[in-house]
């Protein structure tokens, strides 16, 4: 049983990991997260913007992020998401997994 069931089911867990990574720097609201991911990947990673919200809910449900009311740079009321301690642990786990995965893929690709 355990946490197996709560593993996110989006493409190799990347969206969850990206959100957690983004939020591990600072708290942001939904649009801010999208912007950050796109800008810091030089617009290589195009998040399907609508999918962000189910992902946020899932992360919140798992207790990895927390939403609180705050204000955007334009002075509009918005829900600002922050990473929790459990979220940081999860980020570490996923980062490790991701590193392993990319390494494995790189090995396969590198093998002649």
């Amino acid at each position, binding site marked *: *049983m*355990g946490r197996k069931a709560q593993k996110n089911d989006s493409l190799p867990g990347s969206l969850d990991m990206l959100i957690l990574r983004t939020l591990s720097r600072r708290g942001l609201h*939904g649009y801010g997260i999208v912007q950050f991911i796109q800008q810091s990947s030089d617009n290589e990673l195009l998040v399907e913007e609508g999918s962000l*919200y*189910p992902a946020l809910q899932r992360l919140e*449900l798992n207790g990895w992020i927390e939403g609180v009311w705050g204000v*955007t740079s*334009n002075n509009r009321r918005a829900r600002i998401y922050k990473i929790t301690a459990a979220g940081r642990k999860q980020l570490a786990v996923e980062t490790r997994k991701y590193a392993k995965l990319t390494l494995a893929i790189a090995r396969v690709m590198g093998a002649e």
Partner: protein
Amino acid sequence: MLIRRLRYWTEKARRSEVLSEEMELHLAEKAAELQADGMTPERARAEARRRFGNVSLKHEESREIWMTRFWSELAQDVRYGFRTMIANKAFSTLAVLLLALGIGANTAIYSFMEAILLRSLPVADPESLVVLNWHSPPPFNASKQWVHVVHGIQGIFWPGGKGALVTGIFPYGAFETLGEENPVFSTLFGYFNGQNHNLAIRGQAMSANTEYVTGEYFRGLGVSPAAGRLIGSEDDRPGAAAVAVISFATSQNRFGGPPNAIGQSILVDNVPFTVIGVAPPEFFGVDPAASPDLYLPLHTNVLVDGARAARMYRDGNFYWIEMMGRLRPGVSMAQAQAALAPRFHQWVATTASTDGERAKLPALILNPGAEGLGSLRRQYSKPLYVLLAMVGLILAVACANIANLLLARAAARRSEMAVRLSLGAGRFRVVRQLLTESVMLASLGGALGILFAMWGVRTLTLLLSRGQENFTLHAELNWNVLGVTAALSVVCGLLFGLAPAIQSTRPDVMPALKNGRGSGPRRRAPHVLVVAQIAISFLLLVAAGLFVRTLDKLHSVQLGYARENILLFSLNARQAGHRQPEMTTFYADLRKRFESIPGVSSATLSQSSIISAGHAGGAYRGAMKIGAVTIQGASVMVAGPRFLTTMQIPILAGREIDDRDQTGSTPVAVISERLARTYFGNENPVGRRITFVDDNRDLEIVGVSANLRYGSLKDGGSSMTVFTAASQFPPDRVTYALRTAGDPLSYVRSVHEVVREADSRIPVTNVITQAAEIDRTISRELTFAKLCTGFAVLALLIACVGLYGTMSYNVTRQIGEIGVRMALGAQRGAVIWMVLRRVLILAAVGLAISLPVALSASRLVKSFLFETQPNDPRTLALAGVVLLSAAVLAGYAPARRASRIDPVAALRQE
């Protein structure tokens, strides 16, 4: 996670709005950005939407995350629970069965309580109905004489505190006064139960319970007819046409349906009535105990009961009519009482004729009418509470037992749990999963328990109704009861699941991982649970012991007359139109015809059966004298010829009453031995005289009978009896007794034939064997003794299973230790003793806890006991011995197993 989810659920609507707001903001910001890049506002908004995707779909998806996960996890837990249950078939079956028994018994008893104590009358707006009662100080003065405005009654008083009078019957004058225009009641209606009358429909007679009701009765209750119309004010006045309303059941049994009954003419005690309507099927009158077959307008009792009834209306000191009122909207019961009590006081003061009577006038009190009159409630509420307490204890034992089994299993599953916890499962998640399992067990138990309860309700109805003709208590498993059962199951599941779940997920998982066969520190919880089970079993054993002893005492009561091979039945010729003096001849002829039925060795008649003589009317109740001496404490029994022979009461001197004693001949009496001894000493009383003062008649004593117990087993007991001849003191209603060869009930058909030949208008009622009639008076004791013994055995069995389980587990855990001991030379006997000693210690601790509880709790059932003290030492000792023997028995198998341990194997395993 569950908590977060619950929190989300509680603010579901708000969270949904928040989500919309977030998405809106997202779109707005995106649009603003695109606009800054040079798009027109319209295009920017459209582009933002395009890139976002389907807004409402995403909204839906986001919300679903909180919902579906919960159910999918639950489904996972349930699936897993099923797998675990199937993997442990023996355990699951045992647990489900235990719970089914416990929950089923509770459901059955609760459905009775619901039927008797909680259900409302099936009428419109029962909450606004109030019953009128009154209470007054004790009616007797210092010299034990009755001084009270009540000079006569038809109905019952029920005991108030310290001899006070409490009742719901009033004089007709009070009904008229209270019914006058008043600001608190929209209607006030009266009624009284006329008991059984002879109802003849198309020439076929039956005995019908008759309710006399005032014209406002049906309107006040808000009942609508199943057919025709109900009795109204115009029907209830002197001289109105004689009309009747019949019950739904009667219309079906006698007319083949409500519509056919309308306009038919019927005879009530030979007086013609016309059926104008049929009551609805669910309506049983205002007293759940009565359930009338026939409703007649109040004033028609003058037609049926004659001049005696006419007097009742004028006599302000004769109490008979019962009343209910319907409160006007917005009026509280307290306001109504404040308004009506002075009015009643004023009226009742005018009926008092002496200062003594004036000193203790009745005072009006109002009670809620929603549940109807309390006669069933008074009769059954205490027994039901006692039974409910017992089945509650059984369920507690069952829960403790399952908790114990789960604890043992939890120990076995420790490594599984440890693996799960170390793999990162949250403790709460695991506890929740374990609780799901136990609630599943409990739900299965509850479902099975409902089946068990259906059987239980039927059995209990049979036990409680035992021989009563029109038993009206109908318990059923309705939604209310089923809801309570479901709640009970879930609570049980949580109760017995919580402790083991918490214990098995203790964070100290490492030792369990290292050591496969959990031999951690000795755990106390199983022992506590076993002690609790033993303590509760002891309570139930004591209760069973007390009731069985009571039954034993009742069975050993010396009756003084025959119990077996006697058939009893009653006839009421007066209600079919017979009158004196012809009626006496009619009864006497019938007796001869019964005696000539083949197989009947003798037949007799009396004013009632001996058992019910205590509360049946008809016999002489006035003062009796022998010479100048007044006889104290003797009862009169009107008997026909051969009474003593039929009842096998020995004749000690002289003769019994026989055919020589005719209406015109010298009045005779036969007295019982105790009476003879008390008032004649050693003289022969035969030939002496006894005077019935109120009748102004002298009776010649012609014989002396052996003593007999007159009246019911419990409160009867006067063995001073005067038998008088039925021909000389003719009763209206008689009970025949036939002494038969073989089963008395096989003669019922012949009896019916004889009666039909003589007069088909007379129904044969109260057909019963003497043995059954005697048992009926102790039916409650019988029921209690049977149920309690059953409960106690069940509890003891469960407790023994628990004890056995715990001991087996202990032995398994101590294999190493026992092996060492045996290797060091311990004898088998010593090992057995080592295990049994612990069993005995547990049992003794349970006993020690339970004994004081038993002593104080048994006082609560004192009123159910007969010649048995609640702290009866023999019962307590017996219960203790039974308990200890059962404990030793349960502990012996594990002990024996311990003594068979092979030391070498045990040590190697260690």
